[in-house]
């Protein structure tokens, strides 16, 4: 491989970072910055899905669970910060004004605890869940359906625990973000930049995973799990690691979603939200580095723009994206890019070692 092609992904991340962190704030209106921030959050979750599904073969249909863990951890902190020291959040008062704050809320008054929880909660939950499922060799459709069922279960649970979690209406009306007034253009830009920077960091992390031995092992496990076992590795551990990383990314995406969008409800973590997260990954290219992030952003943008001008049509388009991409472009739009690269290479009479058409179609 040439130096250039091995560096291409890094250059890409660099360009992407400049676009997000420098160009976008300079040219976009406040409204579109806030939208872009939302897409970034979804893209962070998508990058994790790309790792777990694209590289690891685990169709994670319940990423809403982890998105929700991060989002609710953040939202609980912001709600308490908004309520002020010692005060109860407004929605709790009606049902029982004298009862204390539920015990599990109390630690979220702490900024440090909240930040730690955003990372640690998904690690704990996904590790337990993943350990149980992967050790029992649950995979494929079983895995997809079970994770989806858990997302539904969590959404229903939150909807029905109104005093404890705000229920169906969710948590909203946040005034402060770690001491900063949210209703302030400069602070909004800061929140956006944090989300965008986190997306870039996640891309770098996945880039490093993909080129590491672990990345090779993960692909090997996806394609021939038993073979990996007979090379002396426990495939469960390999998948578990990717699953946990994906969960943490979903959680971080969820956490940043809250200050940017200003509301989190069980609907954002339920079945259809979880499936929508997959849509972008499938569109962009599940196994590629940029595919999941760009795909998620494209879906978000489509929802914002096409969903405005032609709402019914957007649902049909979304449905057709699922069908056509999966049917004709299983590796997403990024495979078109690869194919184009192959064409260019061929026309310049420089046969590469592994031209794209030699790659096996994904199983």
């Amino acid at each position, binding site marked *: 491989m040439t130096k250039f092609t091995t560096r291409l992904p890094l250059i890409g991340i660099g360009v992407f970072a400049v676009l997000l962190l420098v160009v976008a704030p300079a040219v976009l209106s406040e409204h579109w910055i806030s939208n872009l921030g939302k897409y970034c959050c979804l893209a962070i979750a998508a990058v994790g899905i790309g790792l777990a599904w694209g590289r690891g073969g685990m169709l994670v249909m319940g990423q809403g669970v982890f998105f929700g863990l991060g989002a609710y951890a953040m939202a609980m902190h912001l709600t308490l910060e908004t309520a002020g020291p010692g005060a109860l959040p407004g929605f709790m008062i009606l049902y029982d004004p004298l009862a204390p704050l539920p015990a599990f809320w109390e630690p979220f008054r702490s900024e440090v605890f909240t930040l730690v929880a955003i990372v640690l909660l998904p690690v704990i939950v996904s590790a337990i869940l993943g350990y149980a499922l992967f050790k029992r060799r649950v995979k494929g459709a079983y895995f997809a359906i079970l994770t989806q069922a858990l997302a539904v279960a969590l959404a229903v649970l939150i909807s029905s625990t109104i005093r404890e979690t705000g229920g169906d209406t969710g948590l909203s009306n946040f005034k402060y973000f770690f001491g900063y007034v949210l209703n302030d253009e400069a602070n909004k830009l800061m929140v956006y930049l944090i989300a965008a920077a986190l997306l870039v960091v996640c891309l770098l992390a996945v880039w490093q995973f993909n080129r*590491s031995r672990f990345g090779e092992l993960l692909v090997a496990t996806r394609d021939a799990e038993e073979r990996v076992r007979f*090379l*002396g590795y426990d495939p469960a551990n390999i998948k578990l690691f990717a699953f946990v990383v994906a969960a943490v990314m979903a959680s971080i995406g969820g956490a940043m979603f809250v200050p940017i969008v200003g509301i989190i409800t069980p609907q954002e973590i339920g079945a259809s939200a979880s499936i929508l997260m997959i849509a972008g990954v499938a569109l962009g290219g599940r196994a590629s580095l940029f595919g999941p992030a760009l795909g998620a952003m494209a879906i978000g943008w489509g929802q914002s723009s096409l969903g405005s001008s032609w709402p019914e049509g957007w649902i049909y388009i979304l449905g057709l994206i699922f069908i056509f991409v999966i049917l004709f472009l299983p590796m997403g739009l990024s495979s078109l890019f690869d194919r184009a690269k192959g064409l260019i290479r061929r026309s310049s009479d420089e046969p590469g070692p592994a031209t794209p058409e030699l790659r096996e179609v994904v199983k």
Partner: protein
Amino acid sequence: MSVPDASLVVSDLHVQFGAFVAVHDVSFDAHPGEVRFLIGPNGAGKTTCIDAITGLSKGTGTARFGDKELLGSPAQKIVRLGVGRTFQTASVFAQLSVLQNLDIAAGLRRSPVSLLRARRGVDASVERALEETGLGTVRDLPAGMLSHGQKQWLEIGMLLVQDAKVLLLDEPVAGMSQDERTATGELLGRVAANRVVVVVEHDMDFMRSFATRVTVLHQGRVLSEGSVAEIQADPRVQEVYLGTAGALSGALAPGAEEVD
């Protein structure tokens, strides 16, 4: 007979699927320096024996490598004890290069943290395996593009970089050309010098050329055991093979049994 530390000793191996007994009290041993063959007609239980020893199927009885009991351990633990295997249909990681395939095999004893770093340079063990299997020229090719024979060699190479002390090979020469068979046989002879090599095979010519000792299985039981000359002379073996496939040297349809 004394059992050297590095020998594989299987005794009273019994494998049952529901009511069907696939392997019935099979015993055999294999020692470094010999190329040990397991043969038998379709459904004799050859592959099932290997499956049981390597943890793919559940079996009772004992299978000891040195003083370590293999039965009952998970597959990946058995591999870590130094017992490796190949499969009837060569299973390599088609999308990864030959080098990456070998590197994954070599990574068995790497620390988890080092797994998170990119590969730098090529391990000496990988270089040796490339040389030994003659795959050096195709090292950067995706394994999916290799010929059938090359894939089998790659699989053997993966066992070599792991420094497996027991190699259980399931029909390694099926579908190979005559030249490739000879090359494979010679490779096996070389690696058997300080390892236990057990080969499950249908190809009788290949067996005759390279086996040092042979066990014949029939309907899950040991029918006969001995040198190539001894088992060829065994009337029971002749009967089984004449009764099923016509002749001892006849080509038995490979791959039609025990597909999992």
